[in-house]
């Protein structure tokens, strides 16, 4: 579903990612793990088309993405959950969902209903303004919003940031369910334990490069994980 080869990203004048390659198949959750500033978000932004200057090849849904605008990429079936949620604060939860759906009014309502099934809490708060939602509800809304277009590839940036431990499980379970329904999920996470609980495979990033790569089980048991993330 997604193949990245030799990706480098310049963020302004700063080198954020150097020579990264990865692939995500449909039905699979792949995590990018690393400390803040390791370059995880830059990879996701490069895929959706919001990063600065990029080099290397990105293919998704059978298309080469170079030169396409973010909205063209979204229309190829890429869903995006930005870091910090970035829900449309002045709009209601339901409007946030509707705005990301390009189908007709009936399908829009059906998709939203499906989202309320996935996140029942969101259904109860559908008419609340997004800024009034709790952090966890906003995170669910951001994920649900990205799913409204039924994407084949979902990019999720730091979904657990600032969430209470009880909510982590809701989010990781949702990501697993989305993958089980056939989507490819690329997850960027600072919370290594939560990420490893949610993913099949993970890449550990530090200073814009991949330090280690492996299955969730092998990395979870790796004592060097902390050192790989911290440096040294």
């Amino acid at each position, binding site marked *: 579903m997604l193949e990245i080869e030799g990706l480098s990203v310049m963020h*302004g004048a700063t080198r954020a990612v150097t020579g990264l390659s990865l692939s995500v198949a449909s039905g699979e959750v792949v995590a990018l793990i690393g400390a803040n500033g390791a370059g995880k978000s830059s990879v996701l932004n490069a895929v959706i088309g919001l990063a600065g200057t990029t080099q290397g090849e990105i293919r998704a849904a059978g298309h080469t993405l170079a030169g396409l605008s973010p909205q063209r990429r979204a229309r190829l079936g890429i869903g995006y959950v930005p870091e910090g949620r970035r829900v449309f604060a002045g709009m209601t939860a339901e409007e946030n969902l509707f705005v990301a759906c390009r189908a007709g009014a009936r399908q829009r309502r059906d998709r939203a209903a499906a989202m309320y099934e996935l996140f029942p809490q969101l259904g109860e708060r559908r008419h609340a303004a997004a800024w009034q939602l709790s952090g966890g509800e906003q995170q669910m809304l951001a994920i649900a919003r990205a799913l409204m277009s039924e994407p084949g590839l979902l990019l999720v940036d730091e979904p657990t940031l600032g969430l209470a*431990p009880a909510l982590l499980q809701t989010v990781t379970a949702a990501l697993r369910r989305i993958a089980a329904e056939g989507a490819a999920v690329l997850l960027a996470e*600072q919370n*290594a334990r939560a990420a490893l*609980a949610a993913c099949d495979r993970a890449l550990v990033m530090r200073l814009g490069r991949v330090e280690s790569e492996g299955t969730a089980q092998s990395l979870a048991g790796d004592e060097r994980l902390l050192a790989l993330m911290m440096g*040294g």
Partner: protein
Amino acid sequence: MSAATRIAAWLGRDLNAPLALGTVALVAWPLIGGDAYTLRLLTIAGIYALAALGYQFIFGHAGALSLAQGAFFGIGAYVAGILSVRTGAGFEITLPASILVTAGVACAVALPVLRLQSHYFALATLGIAQVVLLLAVNWVTVTGGANGIAGIPALELFGWSVGRGWPMLVLVWSIVAAGALLARRLIRGLAGPALALLREQPLAADAAGLDAGRLRLVAFVMSAIYGGVAGALQVHTVRVVSPEVLEFPVMVALLAIVVIGGRTSAAGAILGAILLIHLPEWFRPLEKYYLLAYGVALLATIVAAPWGLIGAARRLRARLFPEAPPAPPAARAVAPRPARAALEIRALVKHFGGVEAIDGVDLVVAPGASIGIIGANGSGKTTLLNLIAGAERPDSGRIDWGGRDIAGMRPGLIAAAGIARTFQGVKLVDDLSVLDNVAAGRWRGWRDASLALAHGEAMALLDRVGLGADPWQPCGALPPGLRRRVEIARALIGRPSMLLLDEPAAGLTGAERQELAALLRALAGDGLTLIVVEHDLEFLEGVAERLICLERGRIIADGTAADIRRDPAVIAAWLGSVPATTPAGG
């Protein structure tokens, strides 16, 4: 050195070949086609050039979109016109009066208005201009109301009447030349780089201890004075003064002159004024639509050549005839100022909305210590630096520096007290040379504005951070690793006792990180207190003797790097918490 040779040297430094050619062309033009109308238009162009030169101070150099320049121009015209008609006073009286009144008005409104940001400043100055216009229309006994005052006499200087045509033209352009030279002198020294920093990176200017408020005030008052002088000349040229001189088209003309000619070069103001005043003449075949050309020219320039005609010409010249950069200036050592004061933070709290970014931090940093701060995204690291540097105000708590509570003080004052900082996103002026970027941090006012001295000190610091090889290249051309070092050098030129670094190693390669660590160790060796925020423990180990780990705005660990690596709270914070139940993988 005699006065004459000094003036000659001064002129020699300030004049260059294209400027000389332009001056020759400007003199030749009226000589060749010198009918009365040509002379009059050129006189008016000179007057607008003077007002535009002034406008460059506030709009071009200080970067604030003032819409009051037309008002200052009109005030100058009214003051000179009213005085010369009512009292018969000569220009030797009316000119200083115009200057006094415009400068006084500028000072009076500056206090509230200059603090305002971008469009608010534009609106406030527009409001001032509208009030002045209303005053001119309605204060009939003094201003003559909507009809204004006609029959203003020719300009009289110490009893000598300066007639229409050549005499007035020469007088106006002499004043323009003097005004241009004065403007160039004011900008030439360290003020140029300092204003560029203020305009392009206001936060960095504050953090470097530049007195931004005073710089803006001087720019605003200078712009008012130039406007006032131009207005006084205008009233004796057109011999009437009416509210028209205060209306928006005058302001728009000045804005267009500066945008089209160039925002910061004196030549730009002069070229822009000559073009804009003659544009309607040249487009006369368009009849009623000729003023439309004005708007089209302004729009085309702002879209296609935002740096103006002079800027475009300079860029072209630099591309066609690249000049060898001058030799690097001789380095002048900057004596370090070892820290004698301790930093003592007590019960510091800062909320953003409902989020407690800093939630009760106590921290004592001994003089000359180097400490590293680690923590996850959102743990409060940058907020803590911002609170120390004055970029944020704490909700409660104390920050004592040398026995004085600096919590909530303005960044400029904190910088002056010896605390310098760098930014997470490096804040440099890309168009300026590396040398000027560093030198700008030394600005403390016009009294001590020697560029040579600042360049010398900047050179020593560039040598120190390993950038001495090519000090004249523009900062925009530097790779990221080197940009951080320019910022460090700029922080050091203010001779701080403590340096706060926000993610100095972000985006650097391994070798660059090692060089940076070595530099920071050397600075610590000079007795500088260092506080370094970083994600990467390996880098911090090489720099800091003591590490602090922040989590949700609190200090959760404090010790050596080895202590930190073993600390269970740090490990939990770093690797994150496990979801309540782990779904099956695969």
